[in-house]
């Protein structure tokens, strides 16, 4: 550890190892973004509005390209409402017209009413560009950690504390 500081090349190599782990993770995420054409290719389900298909904490993989066909009725899409930053995962139940101007209406499988109330004021339908991707694949539970961390901030403190403790203990 101390000798690393004495030799700048050695220190630079150590720092690079750490930096490359971080940057590779980030670039893999961005690569997935580019391939799926979605700003957020993997999302964690935050609400129970699509139960029993999706529960809180499930991981969804999104695809945002229309290679074979347009986004159609029955697809489960993730969309952003203007002015709200929480993406919503719901099913398209109505579609009027085709192309980028097509009007789409969504509804959660577990909700009684459609999403008109959730949209921005005066907005009755979604258009294609509101959508950040359609759900194509699913892994259960894996995303629950992020929900735990965001809902119980003390967990972050505990985790940081544990990590710090580990560093201290490992030094011997």
């Amino acid at each position, binding site marked *: 550890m101390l000798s690393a500081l004495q030799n700048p090349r050695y220190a630079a190599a150590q720092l690079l190892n750490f930096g490359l782990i971080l940057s590779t993770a980030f670039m893999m995420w961005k690569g997935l973004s580019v391939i799926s054409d979605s700003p957020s290719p993997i999302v964690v389900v935050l609400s129970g509005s699509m*139960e*029993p*298909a999706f*529960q809180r904490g499930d991981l969804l993989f999104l695809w945002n390209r229309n290679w074979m*066909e347009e986004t*159609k*009725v*029955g*697809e*489960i899409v993730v969309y952003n409402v203007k002015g709200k930053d929480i993406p919503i995962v719901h*099913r398209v*139940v*109505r*579609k*009027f*017209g*085709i192309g980028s101007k*097509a*009007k789409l209406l969504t509804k959660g*499988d*577990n909700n009684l009413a459609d999403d008109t109330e959730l949209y921005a004021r005066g907005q*009755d*339908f979604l258009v294609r560009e509101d959508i950040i991707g359609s*759900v*194509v*694949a*699913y*892994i*259960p539970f894996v995303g629950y950690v992020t929900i735990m961390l965001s809902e119980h901030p003390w967990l972050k403190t505990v985790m940081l504390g544990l990590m710090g403790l*580990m560093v201290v*203990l*490992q030094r011997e």
Partner: protein
Amino acid sequence: MHSSVVRVQNVFGFFTTVCFAVAAFIALSDYYSPRTPSATLAVKDIQVVRGRPHYYSTKKEEYAHIRFSLSSDLSTLFTWNTKQVFVYVSASWPDASAPNKTAHVNEAVIWDTIITSPSADHLQNIGPAAMKKLLKSAKGNAIDPSRGKLELKNQKPKYQITAPSGNVANIENVVLKLHYNVQPWVGILTWTPQMDILRWKQVKGGVSKAFKLPAIKVKEEKKKAAK
């Protein structure tokens, strides 16, 4: 450090790898089981009425109520990796003002249902009595193919259809279609295929004859009331 921490890390890493390998195997096993769904779908009674989108709205729109009969066998969609099958019937119709007058560019779901696998029954959002009945219906079975058999006679639609223009009366060339969406426990979500994919066949049938939405009924009622 070859300490306990490293060992715990190694064990956890191996555990994760095994989990993902098992999950991948389960997900891929979907492609092995054949899917041969079939259905017959027939339109029964159709009504177009005028109404408001919600109670306080001043806007008046036309709504079509389409009753239908459905007889389907979707039992092959249920495998050990099926969490639920979302079954929906949609009405689609062309846009008379569009350049392509035959393409069904408008589509709306008129009825849907969620059929859970016995493994996912407990997740259904239903009352305690219905839940008890549901759990009992597949007791001891991991897969229950009978769940995929639907017999609906003169079924009332769950959703009335309308269009952004507010006019749906007299629309011609409307077709009802049965669709499904298989939700796995892990893996790829699948929808009604547009073509045969390996062991997965298209729905046999599942499309109604084309029909025309009638004129508005309210007028007649008003006339009757006037008389």
